[in-house]
C-alpha cells in the first residue's frame, strides 16, 4: 500500500521511526513545512527553545544523559548560524546529535535570498558529516544515515539541511527504510591486544588513563574491573569523570591543568600509560614532551586518527574500547602491585587536593559538597564553563557514567542551563543540577522560561562572583594583576530575573539557614534557581600554567 507524503511528512515519520520522542528547536519561514508536519505528530514532543543555541544544547543534554542521538531543529539563516556553537561543541566532545535545518528553496540557493546562508559550507568543519538534501526521495536515505553516522564509530554531530521546496515536494512511498543504528567497528587486533596485555603484566608502575570514549562506549564497568584485577591506579579526563567512582581506592581523579598534585605526580612516575578512549588533550597533558616522561604507551581508541596524533603509542589499538577491554582483561594477570600502590598512596597522602572550608555551605567547595549531600548518585550534574566547573570537577563525588554533563573540548559558556533542561526532559525521573556562574548563565539565560514552560526538575546553582572568574584568575596570576574586562560593573538581580522568567528562586546569601534553604530548594519538584555569592579572590588550584609541564603546578 502506498501513501503520498510531502518531504516534511517523510522527515517527521523517519524521526518517529528512529524512536525520537523529544526534539528541541525554533521554527521560522524555511522550516515551516516540517513544523506543520511535526505539529501533527502524536508521538514527538517539541520543546520550543528561546534561542537556537539553547535548542542545540538541550539536544546535547538529551544525548549526553542517554547516549542516544538527539535532534535539534532551526530555520535557515540566523536560525542555522545560531545552532553552530552547539554543533561545534558536540563535535569536540563526540556527542551524537542530528541537527535539522530549513533552507531556502533550491531555485533561490545562491541568490542571497532572505535568510539564506551557506549552512552546508559553514557546518563542514564542525560536523562529523553533513547533507544538503536534493529531493524528498533522498530523505529516505539521508535521515537514517544521519543517525547511523552520528552513533557509529566515534560519535558526533550530523547536520541535514533541507530546502523548503524539498519539504513541500509530495512523493509516493511504498516502503520505509530501516532506522539508522550504530554500526560496530572491526574487532580489535588480537596480536595488539596480547602485546598490550604483556606490557601491562610486565609493568611495575602502570596507570590507567580513561577518557570520554569510555563513557560513550559503555565501557566504564569493564574498565573498573580491569583496574581492580591488575590494581591499576586510574586517572580520568574531565570527560570521563564518573567512569570510576571518585572514592574508589584506585581512583586518582582528574588529571591535567586542574588535577590534584598527587595525580599529576603519579603520572610523572608511571612506566606504562594505558590510554583508553582519551585523546591526549592539551588541558590533560600539559607540555606534551614532559607528559609521563618515563612511560611506554598503550592507546586504545575507536578513532584511528587519534592514535599517534599527539603521542606515539608503543601499542595502538583502533577499536571500540568496550570490546577491546573485554578481550584485554582476561589476558591481564591479577597483581596486587603493592609497591606501586603504596607509592601512589604516599603521593595521595602528601599531595592531596586541597579543599578548605568544606563545612561552610557558602564557600565554593562547601556549597558543592552541601549540594552533593542533598542528592544520591541518580542525580545528573551539569555545569557551565569557568571556575565553578573546575571546582565541581574537583569536589563533586561523581560515581556514575553519564552522571556528569560538561562542555569539555569547546568549553562553551552557556552550555549548562539548556543542557540540564535537555537531560531533565530525557530522564524526567532524575533530579538535574546545573552548577553555573554569573558569566555563563547570562549566555543562555533566556532558556529559564523554557525550563518554566516544561516544568523540568532542574536546580540551577549559581555561584556568583560578579566576574569572569577564570579570566580574573589568569590576569591575576599571569598578567601582572592587570584586571581588565573581567569584573562586571553592573550585575543583574538574579533572584528577580529568575522569578521574572517564572521559576522559583532562593538566595542563600540572605537565608537564615543556608543548608536548610538549599535542601528545601533541591527537594521541591520543578525548576529553581539557587543563588550564592562567592569570593572573587578564590582561585582554581592547583593549576598548571599554560605551556608548562604538569609537574610544575602552582597553588595549593
Amino acid at each position: 500500500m502506498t501513501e503520498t507524503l510531502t518531504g516534511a511528512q517523510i522527515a517527521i515519520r523517519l524521526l518517529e521511526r528512529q524512536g525520537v520522542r523529544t526534539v528541541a528547536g525554533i521554527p521560522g519561514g524555511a522550516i515551516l513545512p516540517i513544523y506543520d508536519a511535526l505539529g501533527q505528530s502524536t508521538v514527538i514532543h517539541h520543546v520550543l527553545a528561546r534561542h537556537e543555541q539553547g535548542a542545540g544544547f538541550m539536544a546535547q543534554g538529551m544525548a549526553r544523559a542517554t547516549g542516544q542521538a538527539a535532534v535539534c531543529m532551526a530555520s535557515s539563516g540566523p536560525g542555522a548560524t545560531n545552532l553552530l556553537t552547539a554543533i561545534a561543541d558536540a563535535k569536540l566532545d563526540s556527542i551524537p546529535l542530528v541537527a535539522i535545518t530549513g533552507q531556502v528553496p533550491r531555485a533561490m540557493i545562491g541568490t542571497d535570498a532572505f535568510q539564506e546562508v551557506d549552512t552546508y559550507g559553514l557546518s563542514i568543519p564542525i560536523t562529523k558529516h553533513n547533507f544538503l538534501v536534493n529531493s524528498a526521495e533522498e530523505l529516505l536515505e539521508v535521515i537514517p544515515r544521519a543517525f547511523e553516522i552520528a552513533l557509529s564509530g566515534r560519535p558526533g554531530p550530523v547536520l541535514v539541511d533541507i530546502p523548503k521546496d524539498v519539504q513541500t515536494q509530495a512523493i509516493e512511498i511504498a516502503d520505509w527504510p530501516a532506522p539508522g543504528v550504530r554500526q560496530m567497528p572491526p574487532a580489535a587486533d588480537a596480536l595488539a591486544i596480547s602485546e598490550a596485555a604483556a606490557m601491562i603484566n610486565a609493568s611495575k608502575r602502570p596507570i590507567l588513563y580513561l577518557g570520554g570514549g569510555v563513557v560513550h562506549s559503555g565501557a566504564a564497568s569493564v574498565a573498573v574491573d580491569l583496574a581492580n584485577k591488575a590494581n591499576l591506579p586510574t586517572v580520568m579526563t574531565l570527560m570521563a569523570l564518573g567512569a570510576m567512582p571518585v572514592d574508589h581506592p584506585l581512583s586518582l581523579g582528574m588529571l591535567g591543568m586542574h588535577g590534584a598534585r598527587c595525580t599529576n605526580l603519579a603520572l610523572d612516575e608511571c612506566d606504562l600509560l594505558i590510554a583508553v578512549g582519551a585523546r591526549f588533550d592539551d588541558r590533560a597533558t600539559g607540555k606534551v614532551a614532559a607528559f609521563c616522561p618515563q612511560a611506554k604507551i598503550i592507546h586504545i581508541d575507536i578513532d584511528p586518527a587519534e592514535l599517534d596524533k599527539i603521542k606515539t603509542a608503543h601499542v595502538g589499538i583502533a577499536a571500540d574500547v568496550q570490546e577491546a577491554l573485554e578481550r584485554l582483561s582476561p589476558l591481564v594477570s591479577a597483581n596486587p602491585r603493592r609497591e606501586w600502590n603504596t607509592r601512589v598512596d604516599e603521593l595521595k597522602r602528601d599531595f592531596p587536593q586541597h579543599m578548605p572550608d568544606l563545612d561552610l555551605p557558602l564557600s565554593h567547595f562547601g556549597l558543592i559538597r552541601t549540594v552533593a549531600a542533598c542528592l544520591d548518585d541518580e542525580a545528573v550534574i551539569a555545569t557551565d564553563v569557568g571556575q565553578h566547573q573546575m571546582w565541581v570537577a574537583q569536589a563533586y563525588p561523581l560515581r556514575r557514567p553519564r552522571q556528569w554533563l560538561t562542555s569539555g573540548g569547546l568549553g562553551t559558556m552557556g552550555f549548562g542551563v539548556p543542557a540540564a533542561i535537555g537531560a531533565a526532559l530525557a530522564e524526567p525521573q532524575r533530579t538535574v543540577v546545573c552548577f553555573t556562574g554569573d558569566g555563563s548563565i547570562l549566555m543562555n539565560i533566556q532558556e529559564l522560561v523554557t525550563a518554566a514552560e516544561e516544568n523540568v526538575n532542574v536546580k540551577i546553582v549559581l555561584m556568583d562572583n560578579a566576574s569572569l572568574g577564570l579570566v580574573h584568575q589568569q590576569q591575576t596570576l599571569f598578567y601582572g594583576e592587570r584586571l581588565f574586562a573581567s569584573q562586571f560593573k553592573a550585575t543583574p538581580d538574579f533572584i528577580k530575573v529568575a522569578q521574572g522568567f517564572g521559576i522559583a528562586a532562593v538566595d542563600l546569601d540572605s537565608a537564615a539557614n543556608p543548608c536548610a534553604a538549599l535542601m528545601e530548594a533541591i527537594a521541591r519538584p520543578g525548576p529553581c534557581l539557587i543563588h550564592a555569592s562567592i569570593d572573587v579572590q578564590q582561585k582554581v588550584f592547583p593549576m598548571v600554567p599554560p605551556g608548562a609541564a604538569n609537574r610544575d603546578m602552582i597553588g595549593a
Partner: protein
Amino acid sequence: MNALTKNERQALSRAVLEIDVNNHPGVMSHVIGLFSRRTYNVEGILCLPVGDGACSRIWLLVNEDARLPQMMKQAEKLEDVIAIRRHHADHAVFSELEDFFRP
C-alpha cells in the same frame, strides 16, 4: 607554509595523493577543507569523474610535512572518501600536465 619563499617551496619534497570520492557537490570542500583549516597548502588539484560518474578521483599535490600521515587519516574518516593512496612526487599525473602551466 605560506610564509615560505617560492624557492624554499620548490626545495621541499612533495607527495601526490590519489583520493577516490563520491561525486556530488561539497565533496571537494570536505577534502580541501581538511588542509586549509590546518594552514597546509595544497599545491595542485585535479579532479574528474570516474566510470559512470558516481565516483570521482581527486589528485592532490602537497608538500611533504610531518602532518601528512595525520592528514591522510583525517581524510579517510570523511564519509565521502572511499580510498586514499599516497604516491611519490614524480607521479605522471602532475608532471605530464606541466605544459599547461608555463608562466
